[in-house]
């Protein structure tokens, strides 16, 4: 009897270990998924490095060509696209928004997680509720407001409204709650530090991992923003997505030029993604567990 039960136990253990083994089929599925994910990005580079004759041939070209730099030169040389200006504008807008969102969200997240004040829960609930509101809904009056304060066509119109977000505050609050022990703050208080001093020297350094993820997200989001920019900016002072739309709308037959513009606008983000991919994935998955 004892022999039999021991065998059952070993078999059970073996089986439960095998339960989580990846089969070859799992690998095939995942590799197929990755190929589907990567192909359009690869395709973008193929077309960007070809001539328009190549693009219009059957069968379509499937490997990289040699005209990438020539095509890129045509994008920057295009008088109507303002592509260099668009890149600079997008870099400024994305950096300013990312830094500001991280700073103000950390400050507010710290207050919500670690300070005691009247109405704290109700105020936090309001922030969560605002995350559910579709922003696009308000763009008509927002545009009218911009007309009134003479901000249409100006870069600050796509920066100032987004300097702090509900998502950012909520994310930093969740992180601060579990990352910073109350004792740490109490100790700094006993030493006579002011609240801001506590935030700057004690809290903010501890929030750094979450702050980095938030900064990355925010940078990418601002870089990729489209509808509001399209409404409020003008073709001669665009951000990069707006410039792409201009190119696509005007020169859609000139695929190799439009695609090399698209590649220039996308490759920086892909590089950031490859360098910080692990952190970005961690950020998404941690947020998901809490949501």
């Amino acid at each position, binding site marked *: 009897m004892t022999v039999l039960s021991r065998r059952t136990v070993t078999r059970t253990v073996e089986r439960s270990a095998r339960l989580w083994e990846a089969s070859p089929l799992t690998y095939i599925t995942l590799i197929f998924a990755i190929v589907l994910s990567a192909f359009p990005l690869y395709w973008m580079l193929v077309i960007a490095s070809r001539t328009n004759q190549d693009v219009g041939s059957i069968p379509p070209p499937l490997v990289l060509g040699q005209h990438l730099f020539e095509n890129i030169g045509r994008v920057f040389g295009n008088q109507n696209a303002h592509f260099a200006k668009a890149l600079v504008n997008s870099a400024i807008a994305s950096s300013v928004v990312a830094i500001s969102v991280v700073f103000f969200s950390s400050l507010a997240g710290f207050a919500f997680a670690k300070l005691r004040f009247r109405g704290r829960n109700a105020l936090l609930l309001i922030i969560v509720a605002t995350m559910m509101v579709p922003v*696009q809904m308000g763009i008509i009056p927002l545009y*009218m407001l911009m007309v009134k304060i003479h901000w249409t066509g100006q870069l600050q119109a796509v920066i100032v409204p987004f300097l702090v977000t509900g998502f950012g505050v909520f994310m930093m609050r969740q992180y601060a709650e579990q990352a910073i022990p109350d004792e740490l703050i109490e100790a700094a208080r006993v030493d006579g530090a002011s609240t801001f001093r506590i935030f700057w020297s004690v809290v903010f350094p501890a929030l750094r991992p979450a702050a980095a993820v938030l900064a990355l997200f925010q940078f990418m989001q601002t870089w990729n923003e489209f*509808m509001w920019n399209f409404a409020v900016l003008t073709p001669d002072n665009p951000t990069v997505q707006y410039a792409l739309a201009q190119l696509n709308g005007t020169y859609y037959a000139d*695929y190799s030029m439009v695609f090399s513009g698209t590649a220039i606008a996308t490759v920086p983000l892909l590089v950031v993604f490859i360098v910080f991919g692990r952190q970005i994935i961690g950020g*998404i998955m941690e947020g998901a567990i809490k949501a």
Partner: protein
Amino acid sequence: MTLDLQTAARPKPAPARPPRGAWRNRLDAKASPYLYISPFYLLFLAFGLFPLGYTFWVSLHHWDILGNNHYTGLRNYQLLLTDPDFWNAVTNTVAMFVIATVPQLLGAMFLANALNRKLRAQTLFRMGVLAPMVTSVAAVGIVFSQLFGRDYGLINWLLHFAGVHNIDWQAHQWSQWTAISTMVDWRWTGYNTLIFLAGMQAIPRDLYEAAAIDGASRRVQFWRITVPSLRPTIIFTSIVSTIGGLQLFTEPLMFNQNLMQGGSLRQGQTVAMYMYESAFQRFQYGYGSAVAWMLFLLIIIIALINYLITRRLAGGRI
């Protein structure tokens, strides 16, 4: 609230500060929290809440670009309800949303299940599925418009091996729905996969071991354990997809080369595009605002329906 109890139980530290700065310390403790959270509320008030409320006010007027306006009550809404272009946009939006979201969430769950194993090069696989999310919507729109091109597009070229003659993907409603949904799926499936994966990793493993001992196959385990345990995650992803999916704007716009009508017969125009067209191309601010509020209503209704369906689907299995 729990925080208050904890600090009350702990002995208060002796007042170590000189009495001279006492009022300043008290002011610091009282005012700082409000000061720190105020930027969000101020900004939201100015650029979020005010425009939302004002949208409703404007929607009750005939309002043109010069600011000339007169109050018309619910007339804009009345017109909207009998406007065939509006209903066409609603049909397109809802159709693209359904065609995009259902396969997207199923595919994401399937992929998450595959990723939730002992894998080599785990991070590589996760990054691989997430990469499309980094790409901008404009870039996605441009690349897929070419892939779906009539004469030289890769997709038509592949289809011709199956004997399908060149499809003009921009010309018909069904083909626009298909092409645009494909773009949305390509960009968002990986993100939802990671959300599902996070949910799956929170399911206790002994549940599966117990089921395996009882002889349940992997398929049975997936439907009887994984899906019901993922219920909160499924509800979350479907609501997020609803809010995003119904505001579809950039993909159809790029696919139609910036034509806000979404094609000559409006075959690819979404509600967000119709709002934009009314307000920023026909300069009917009042009418455009009414479209915006109807879109908001549509989002709420569909999110509710979605919530009821997913709750029942995921809960009914156990």
